[in-house]
């Protein structure tokens, strides 16, 4: 044994003394090591006890063993030690008996030991007690014997009185709990017990007192001197009634290690059972006779899926199955007992007609002698795995089909060997013939890549091989039929355990058509974009809530906003909410999803711009609603429309004028003609000398004159009407007034009238002199002609200017007229209002024609008996 330890010492490289210490500390043998000068190097407790039997003096390290130290030691001890140290002998064996109140016999061995490593020479003294047999045979009345026995035991012996107070404790208590005997004596047995164990200990103690002489055992924790609780096992016997003892005798020992191991075991068992009962896998343990030893919860729950009978410990596994399976099972178990693992699948259809597949594994159980003493059956549901497996089987077929459907070509390339495999579609897609020679095939493929893309393709493949990078590249390929195809190649590399690329897998797709489509789309998009950007019409894209998403430059310009400003405006901020047009638009939009119509949009500066909008509600791919609105500024259109309307009105008015003119002229021509006809019908042809005939001829002449006058007037009117673009010249009001006044001076004189003319504000206009003279003459003669008989005529002529017009007012203090009655007819042809004067109803008609022909207008204010004011508006020339 020492030899093997020495061997282990050599390999573990521990020092010799440490080794000795280790060796001896683990034995019950007492030992002492001294050096060659008999100086004590080390000793253990057992030796110490032995020493104390013979000596009063203390045994201390570093002290020297001398002859006289051993009071009652036989001389042979030191003399033999000297012999060993002097190398007179290797080993000495001797026996020493202790002859006290009881006789103890010790066998002592002394061995020379040395260690070059520690530069040590000395002796090892080992002491073994040989007392046991003789001790038990001895009579127990010898108290010393017990004392020795007790003091050399590893158990602690204690005595308590009837009140369970310690009256005696053996010295080992110091070793186990660290307390001295004195510290324990007088204390109650329940003290120092762990609080959790107190109740249980109390019960135990009560039982001890109640049941004399019965050995009762308890396990509990006691606090040691360091304050740590340690597990002890205490055996106690009530000997109170024994006259020679009169105490409760207890002996306890330290079971801390055992307890910890027990706990670990229990814990492990619990964990195991927890594990077994919580796992999805089911376990059944069979013994060598195929009887069920144990099984877990999963096995119990699932057993109806596989077996006819419920699981039960002790029954044979063969009882679980149907008879026709027995033969199969027996051969299966034969294999298992030969040491093989067998797998078996069963299928089970549940109440919902769902099929479940289970895999059962039968494993042999070996005992420590490597014999098979049982079988371990585990069952697992593999339905999903099974499905997957089946799918994997289908996978390659499916992949092929998928490749075909997706028109994917596939190529595998081994960079080391340059070998490659291509799918049929690969050749078809590229339009390349399949060649037998790999090298030629490679160079053919390489040559057909579009020259501009060659570098790119080479680099991507190189990167994939060298760095293992995945690639996704588009390149052009000139296929055999002369077409340039766009190919999308996606590839990845497969590496071995050293990270070296062993295979390159690439799929190919002909994306020529989609590429073309994308290009077309992009062109379309850019076209649309340019349309959007350059459109004269405004385009606004807004969300349902009115947020403007996008607006083109035209609309920004139209409404005076920068693009960034417009984006922050809500579309309804641009609308006049109160307008009925807007309400109508919202309604129509809601009902039909679109709107075409005219609106007013608010310019940034606050005024409204008339626009024509075409808006359509639309949804994008994500279901968001947008309103696309095309806006056309119709300010100009509106202006033109306004002008057109005015023009139309003017034309209509002119037309009415002309119609009126034609009615009136025809009336005025018909009247004299009718007179002539009447006169003719009255003429007495039978008697030309009839007196009445003379009168008729006079009237005839009169009527003819009337007709002639009417025709001349009409010609004058027609001249004015048919020649609106009469030549303009610079005409002075003062000049014209002076000229015209000459014609009315006589009349004015007769009526004692006066004229005040003031042309200080405006004196010159661009106009037709003849027309202006005619207008002035008409105005002045009317003012004088229709003067009031109650007062002298006073006429005021004033000229002034506004933004658009030069205005000349003719104000008189004449008769005046009831405009409510005559306004409509005032300027009409042949309308006369004064029966007693020579007016023909032509003057104001002519004046108005002359004014309107040059773009002007004429207004009148009058009050009967007060006077009349005519305002003539001459349009200012640009």
């Amino acid at each position, binding site marked *: 044994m020492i030899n093997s330890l020495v061997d282990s010492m050599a390999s573990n490289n521990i020092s010799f003394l440490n080794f000795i210490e280790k060796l001896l500390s683990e034995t019950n043998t007492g030992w002492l090591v001294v050096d060659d000068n008999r100086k004590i190097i080390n000793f253990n407790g057992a030796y110490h006890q032995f020493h104390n039997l013979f000596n009063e003096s203390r045994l201390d390290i570093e002290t020297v063993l001398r002859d006289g130290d051993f009071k009652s030691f036989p001389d042979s001890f030191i003399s033999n030690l000297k012999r060993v140290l002097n190398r007179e002998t290797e080993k000495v064996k001797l026996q020493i008996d202790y002859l006290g109140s009881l006789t103890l016999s010790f066998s002592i061995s002394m061995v020379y030991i040395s260690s070059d490593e520690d530069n040590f020479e000395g002796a090892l003294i080992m002491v073994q007690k040989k007392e046991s047999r003789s001790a038990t045979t001895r009579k127990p009345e010898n108290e010393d014997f017990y004392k020795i026995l007790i003091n050399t035991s590893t158990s602690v012996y204690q005595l308590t009185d009837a009140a369970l107070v310690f009256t005696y404790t053996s010295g080992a208590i110091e070793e186990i709990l660290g307390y001295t005997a004195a510290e324990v004596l007088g204390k109650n047995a329940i003290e120092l017990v762990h609080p959790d164990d107190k109740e249980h200990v109390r019960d135990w103690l009560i039982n001890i007192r109640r049941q004399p002489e019965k050995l009762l055992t308890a396990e509990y924790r006691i606090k040691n001197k360091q304050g740590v609780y340690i597990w002890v096992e205490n055996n106690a016997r009530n000997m109170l009634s024994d006259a020679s003892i009169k105490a409760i005798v207890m002996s306890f020992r330290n079971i801390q290690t055992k307890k910890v191991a027990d706990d670990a075991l229990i814990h492990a068992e619990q964990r195991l059972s927890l594990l077994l009962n919580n796992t999805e896998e089911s376990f059944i343990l069979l013994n060598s006779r195929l009887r069920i030893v144990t099984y877990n919860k999963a096995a119990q729950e699932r057993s109806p899926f596989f077996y006819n009978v419920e699981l039960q410990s002790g029954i044979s596994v063969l009882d679980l199955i149907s008879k026709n399976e027995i033969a199969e099972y027996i051969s299966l178990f034969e294999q298992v007992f030969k040491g093989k693992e067998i797998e078996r699948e069963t299928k089970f259809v549940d109440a919902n007609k769902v099929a479940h597949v289970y895999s059962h594994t039968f494993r042999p159980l070996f005992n420590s002698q490597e014999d098979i003493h049982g079988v371990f059956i585990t069952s697992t549901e593999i339905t999903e795995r099974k499905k997957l497996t089946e799918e994997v089987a289908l996978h390659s077929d499916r992949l092929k089909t998928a490749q075909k459907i997706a028109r994917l070509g596939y190529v595998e390339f081994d960079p080391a060997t340059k070998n490659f495999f291509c799918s049929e579609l690969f050749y078809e897609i590229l339009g390349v013939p399949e060649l037998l020679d790999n090298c030629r095939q490679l160079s053919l493929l390489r040559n057909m890549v579009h020259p501009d893309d060659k570098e790119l393709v080479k680099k991507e493949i190189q990167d994939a091989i060298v760095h293992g990078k995945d690639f996704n590249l588009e390149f052009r390929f000139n296929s055999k039929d002369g077409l340039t195809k766009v190919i999308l190649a996606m590839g990845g590399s497969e590496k071995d355990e050293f990270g070296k690329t062993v295979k390159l897998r690439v799929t190919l797709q002909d994306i020529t058509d989609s590429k073309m489509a994308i290009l077309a789309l992009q062109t379309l998009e850019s076209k649309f974009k340019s349309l959007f950007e350059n459109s004269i019409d405004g385009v606004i894209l807004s969300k349902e809530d009115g947020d403007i998403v996008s607006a083109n430059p035209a609309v920004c310009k139209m409404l005076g906003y920068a693009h960034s400003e417009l984006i922050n405006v809500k579309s309804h901020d641009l609308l006049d909410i109160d307008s009925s047009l807007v309400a109508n638009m919202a309604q129509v939009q809601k009902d039909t999803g679109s709107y075409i119509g005219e609106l007013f949009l608010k310019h940034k500066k606050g005024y409204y711009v008339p626009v024509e909008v075409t808006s359509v509600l639309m949804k994008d791919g994500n279901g968001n609603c947008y309103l696309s609105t095309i806006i056309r500024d119709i300010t100009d259109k509106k202006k033109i429309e306004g002008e057109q309307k005015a023009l139309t009105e003017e034309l209509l008015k002119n037309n009415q004028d002309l119609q*009126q003119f*034609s*009615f*009136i002229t*025809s*009336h*005025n021509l*018909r*009247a004299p003609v*009718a*007179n002539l*006809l*009447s*006169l003719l*019908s*009255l003429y007495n042809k039978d008697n030309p000398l009839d007196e009445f005939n003379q*009168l008729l001829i006079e*009237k005839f002449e*009169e*009527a003819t004159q*009337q007709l002639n006058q009417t025709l001349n007037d009409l010609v004058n009117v027609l001249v004015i009407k048919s020649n609106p673009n009469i030549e303009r010249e610079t005409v002075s009001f003062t000049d014209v007034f002076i000229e015209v006044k000459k014609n009315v001076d006589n009349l004015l004189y007769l009526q004692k009238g006066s004229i005040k003319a003031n042309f200080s504000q405006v004196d010159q206009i661009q106009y037709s002199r003849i027309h202006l003279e005619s207008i002035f003459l008409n105005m002045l003669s009317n003012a004088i002609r229709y003067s009031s008989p109650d007062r002298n005529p006073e006429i005021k002529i004033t000229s002034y200017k506004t933004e658009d017009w030069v205005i000349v007012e003719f104000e008189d203090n004449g008769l005046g007229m009831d405009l409510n*009655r005559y306004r409509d007819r005032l300027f009409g042809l*042949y309308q*006369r*209002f*004064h*029966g007693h004067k020579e*007016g023909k*109803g032509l003057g104001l008609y002519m004046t108005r024609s002359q004014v309107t022909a040059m773009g002007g207008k004429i207004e009148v204010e009058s009050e009967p008996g007060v006077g009349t004011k005519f305002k003539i508006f001459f349009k200012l020339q640009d």
Partner: protein
Amino acid sequence: MAKFTDVLLVEDDPITIMVCDRIIKMSSFAERVKSCENGKVGIEYLSGLAADCSAPTIIFLDINMPVMNGWDFLEEFDKIKSRFKSLPRIYLLSSTVDPEDYKKAKKFTLVQDFISKPLSKEALQNIN
């Protein structure tokens, strides 16, 4: 024996007045012909007639006259007609070709017809 006793002619043109007067008399259409030179004179004449007497049976009315034209006369006459026991029949006598005038004439219930100038014997024969 003339067809009617009193005829009023409201007309500004002297030749027309002369011619009408002559024709009416020649065709024994009326015993008496009174002429007024415009509407205003006509209304003044009618207003001046004794209360409760008969108004002229027939009035020939020109439209286009100074001071007060035919339409004005019709409106004014409407205001004084209540004083007459029997109301006259009014015939518009005009050279007008304006359709508006024909339409306007229909608004006045007293207006019997439109007679285009010149007044003829045939036209008078149709008035009974």
